[in-house]
């Protein structure tokens, strides 16, 4: 039954994807258009140029590398903090888990400007200003509350029978965590990682306030260099955006493959 409609579904899928990606196409379009024509509204780059790419390539590649390191470190930090705590909140019945859930919701609503101001003060004292680790820490604050909440919610659906069986076999909490809970949470771990990566990737506020003078700057700061007080250079900016989405897209598509069906079901059969 699945196969009968496969071709049709693929066609539909391509259609949906095309609609979703139209603004992306527009960005690519502008990145190949010469400055004089970017506001002409042509659907294909009539005034074709590669200048934009030539201009940004050298300048932006180091920034791109910085962003990737930054985002990956942020993913790891987020998981290291969120995984054990989500386990405790969902499966170990830790006391005060409701309070923590509440705090997590509040944490996500604290205005970014207040957080940045606070961070600047602390970073200035401990010497973390203009450093990558400082920025990793700051960026992780966007993802950690989210990661804990999402992972908790997913871990709650892990069959309790599995854990009880392991407990009877003498597995400790740590062992149950590493050999049952983590493997079974694969889908949600990938999902959380994706978000952590993307938020760190797209952050501008923290980067601008906490790493403005750093020798290594993320790509978002590089992008904003094209928006001056009186001139905005959309061509180079769009070219930078296209360049920066290539490595990230590869990572995304790759990571998405790891979201797989039947993780739980398969484990039960083992």
């Amino acid at each position, binding site marked *: 039954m699945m196969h009968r409609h496969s071709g049709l579904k693929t066609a539909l899928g391509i259609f949906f994807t095309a609609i979703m990606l139209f603004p992306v196409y527009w960005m690519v379009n502008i990145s190949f258009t010469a400055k004089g*024509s970017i*506001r002409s509204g042509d659907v294909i780059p009539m005034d074709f140029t590669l200048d934009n790419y030539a201009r940004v390539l050298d300048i932006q590649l180091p920034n791109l590398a910085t962003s990737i390191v930054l985002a990956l470190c942020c993913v790891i930090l987020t998981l290291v903090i969120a995984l054990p705590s989500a386990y405790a909140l969902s499966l170990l019945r830790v006391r005060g888990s409701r309070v923590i859930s509440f705090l997590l919701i509040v944490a996500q609503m604290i205005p970014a400007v207040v957080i940045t101001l606070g961070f600047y003060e602390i970073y*200035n004292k*401990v010497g973390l200003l203009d450093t990558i680790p400082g920025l990793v820490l700051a960026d992780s604050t966007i993802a950690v509350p989210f990661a804990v909440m999402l992972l908790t919610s997913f871990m709650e659906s892990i069959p309790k029978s599995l854990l009880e069986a392991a407990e009877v076999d003498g597995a400790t909490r740590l062992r149950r965590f*590493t050999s049952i809970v983590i493997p079974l949470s694969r889908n949600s771990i990938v999902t959380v990682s994706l978000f952590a990566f993307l938020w760190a990737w797209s952050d501008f506020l923290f980067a601008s306030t906490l790493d403005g*003078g750093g020798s290594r700057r993320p790509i978002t700061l590089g992008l*904003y*260099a094209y928006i*001056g007080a*009186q001139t905005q250079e959309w061509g180079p900016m769009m070219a930078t955006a296209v360049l920066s989405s290539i490595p990230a897209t590869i990572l995304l598509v790759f990571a998405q493959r790891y979201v797989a069906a039947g993780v739980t079901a398969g484990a039960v059969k083992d």
Partner: protein
Amino acid sequence: MRRIKTAMVKTMALSCVCAMAVGVSACGSSSQEASKDDKTIQFWDDWTRHTNGSEFDKLVKSCAPEGYTIKRQAIATSDLLNNLTTAVKEDNGPDVAVIDNPMIPSAVDAALVAGGDETGLKSTGYDTNLEAPGIVNKVTYGVPLGGSNTLGLIYNPKIVGEAGVDVSSIKDWDSLNKAIEAVVASGHKGIAFSGISGEEGVFQFLPWFWGAKGNLKHTDSQARTDAENLLSGWIQKGWAPKSATTDTQSAAWDLFLAGDYGFVEIGTWMQAEADKANAKMIPIPAKDGGVAPVPTGGEFAMVATHKKNAKEHYDKAVKVISCLSQPEKLLKVNNALSNLSAKKSVRDRQVKENAGLAQWEASIEKAQGRTSDLGLKYEETSASLSESLLAALNKQ
């Protein structure tokens, strides 16, 4: 399962590496911190277009006093003052801060920058009207290092010619309207301008407001209504794009470059591109004839406030600013930013070499500072002008 376990191990290993990297670079940076004060001069400006290693960047760095290096940081205009606020609060500000002129009263009020009475900064040789924004209560806080710019009407001679319009006939608002109407009637588009929310839109609005004899001290006036009606009339008649309500000046310029607009209200800084597009400039007409007063634009080099080792910081800053103010350097700085110099002697040389810039000389010499009359109150006035302008432009 095993595959996942190895993945776990890898993740752990990677996180250790990361943690180490975090530790190492944290140490590295704190040791840098110690040496930062001694031999480095921090220079903040909002010329983000001029990246590290650009000609302008080298120019700034060439002004480091013997034994010092200049670390330049370019920050978007809208963020610079906020970053400066945060930094000065923690006594971690730069030495030199280059600030856009409408923000100066605010910077002075919050004591983010130190006055010449403390730092020894002097403003010499600059035109009185152009240096005015940098002088607050008779104390020199900054000098118009970046040069000055102002607004004019740039037109596309080909389109205007096709419409049979002679630009020399544009003397007042009526004749301007007739010219735009003729351009539209000939199948082209009329005029692009920026009516965006905030200071940028107000900057573009002021020539019309002042041209109708408006006064910033009494904005609730017929002049404001007249100027608003002029601009919103253009949109309603389809002469100006509806997107003017969200277009920045740069966007208005891009629309003009796309080729079909007869006119655009834009500033000196686009002159180089205008030359490339063979476009010409006329001054903005006043309502009842004559040339409308235009606002000065441009950044001022200022000395940021310090608590610890203030004297040392101020000396460094003043040395750099003085070096950049020397005629030879100033000429290069102003040319790099494609602004007209705020010093007459330097400007004369620019004008001789560059016919495009020469068109702006008369306007610049008569231009008015936005904050000269109102000081800190300008922020509020500008906000209320912006509010009312937006309401007018959004009329359908």
